[in-house]
């Protein structure tokens, strides 16, 4: 048998002069994807800043959030707002349950971050395959008339979905920011991200605080799950899209919330431009190369706090 004549078929450089409308349209799509990445990265980074481990179960919580949104919106015919609220509440409850069952015993034993990470991976395999075994591997799509509407704005057509995603992502992130900056509980969470033991010495109930952090992260997972499901359909392994959120969080610097937002937006916008102007195939290779090159020059990411492991 003969090997194929050409070695690589993926690349085809699209015209770089796509015109102004395409540029704005790409930017809007990029911002909406970036906004969702930012939401997921913030949820992930929030847990990291307190417990100092990578919560790999977060992707499957997002996936479950998408299923809740889909079933309440399409199958039960609820209005979109109610579906969103249900998805937020459901994901928050699941995230809290995840902490209480899989992480809390490790926390009591003061296990190292490694064990938390494996436990998170186990949770993620468990949840993904539970959905696969009970609901099935089918891809569910939100109805076209809802996700496919466009409107004209300054000569470019903008997707309704993109606009909603941008608005919801940034409102949610701003809300979280306001809560962390101004409320007493928010101050306690920020204190815990510096030193959780001293925080407890000052009279904060750490178990409750950690529970609350997981509830907040779960709420963000609900919003991002719904929008991810609308954009990419709902299926058991959709949680792997969150590996982009992990990359975004690392680009911004793990544990830093502004970093997660900036990293998410940068990654989303750059990826969309690469897939629009170069090729959608090189998109994933591009995001990974971006990560490695950035880490070579800035080993803590853009806004990272810690370089060394906490001992």
């Amino acid at each position, binding site marked *: *048998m*003969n*090997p*194929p004549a*050409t*070695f*690589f*078929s*993926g690349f085809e450089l699209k015209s770089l002069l796509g015109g102004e409308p395409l540029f704005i349209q790409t930017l809007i799509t990029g911002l909406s994807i970036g906004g969702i990445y930012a939401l997921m990265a913030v949820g992930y980074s929030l847990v*990291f800043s307190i417990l100092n*481990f*990578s919560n790999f179960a977060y992707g499957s919580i997002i996936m479950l959030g998408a299923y809740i949104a889909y079933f309440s919106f399409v199958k039960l015919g609820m209005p979109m707002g109610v579906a969103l609220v249900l998805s937020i509440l459901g994901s928050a409850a699941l995230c809290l349950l995840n902490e209480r*069952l*899989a992480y809390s*015993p*490790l926390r009591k*034993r003061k*296990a190292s*971050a*490694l*064990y*938390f*990470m*494996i*436990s998170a*991976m*186990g*949770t*993620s*395999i*468990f*949840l*993904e*395959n*539970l959905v*696969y*075994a009970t609901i099935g591997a089918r891809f569910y799509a939100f109805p076209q008339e809802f996700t496919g509407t466009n409107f004209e704005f300054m000569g470019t057509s903008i997707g309704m979905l993109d606009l909603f995603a941008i608005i919801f992502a940034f409102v949610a992130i701003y809300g979280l920011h306001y809560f962390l900056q101004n409320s007493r509980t928010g101050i306690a969470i920020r204190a815990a991200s510096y030193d959780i033991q001293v925080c407890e010495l000052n009279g904060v109930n750490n178990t409750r605080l950690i529970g609350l952090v997981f509830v907040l992260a779960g709420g963000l997972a609900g919003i991002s799950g719904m929008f991810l499901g609308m954009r990419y359909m709902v299926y058991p392994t959709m949680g*792997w899209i969150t*590996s982009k959120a*992990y*990359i975004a*969080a*690392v680009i911004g610097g*793990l544990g830093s919330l502004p970093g997660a937002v900036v990293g998410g937006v940068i990654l989303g916008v750059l990826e969309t431009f690469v897939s629009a102007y170069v090729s959608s*195939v090189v998109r*994933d*290779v591009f*995001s*990974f*190369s971006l*990560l*490695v090159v950035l*880490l*070579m020059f800035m*080993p803590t*990411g853009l806004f990272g706090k*810690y*370089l*060394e*492991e906490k001992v």
Partner: protein
Amino acid sequence: MGYYISGILTICLIYVISNVGLSVFTGFTGLFSLGHAAFFAVGAYTAAILTYFYNVNFYLALLAGGLMSGLVALVIGYPTLRAKLRSDYFAIATLGFGEAIRVLLENLSITQGARGLPGIANYATLPVVAAITVITVWIAVNFTHSRQGREAIAVREDFVAAEMMGINIFAVRLRSLIFSAVCGGIAGGLFAHYISFIQPSMFTSYLSTQMTASVVAGGMGSITGTVLATIIFIAIPEILRVASIWRLVAYGLLLVLIMTFRPQGLFGYRELSLGRSWKYLRENTLMRAKGRK
């Protein structure tokens, strides 16, 4: 039936090769890799393409697969290990790396994209695989008992102290990574020539997770633990084919339970040895006998 059992055994041993390699890296340097399936895939594709398109000798192709994996490990390991990333950053970098390799395999024409390579010659029989497994485990055990292995343990336990003792952390980690990648590549080559069909979707991050999980469940830094955990993780699900969907559910649950109740893994840092097991048995029975008196 005999064919069935030898099939399960072959698959087990192939994964033993790759997981022992990963054990040398993760277990002995403390760094996590979530993209090790990529090394497996690179080895599988290199070896398969060589025998399939160019009729290269199987053993040479296997070796080429291992070397190719090692080369890829050098390319990815040099920048990431040089930067002395903390382990979470490294884990996510490898996660991205694994996905990037899979996307590349899906889009290269030499790999025939997502269709995969069907009809690879079936060279990897049980005796061949068993022989290579024995050699790999022997090399791995010697590797960990060498100066390199001791330095790696020092780095894992306290890298600041290790660096002050004059150990070059970067070199130790890079050598371990390349060793594990070569093992993964050879295992991949065997896998391709046993299954005789490969496609990119076989090498997802799920495979990486499974490899890492075997190392952790066996006990970080215990080669025999890794071997045993791999056999348990691969063989039991294969035997319990009946509940094929639910076995993965149980597998995830098992990981969480191990972390919750026996976080040091099956063997902790210790190796399984006949002498020690005998001593343990004898002492325990003696103790019990004394207690009864």
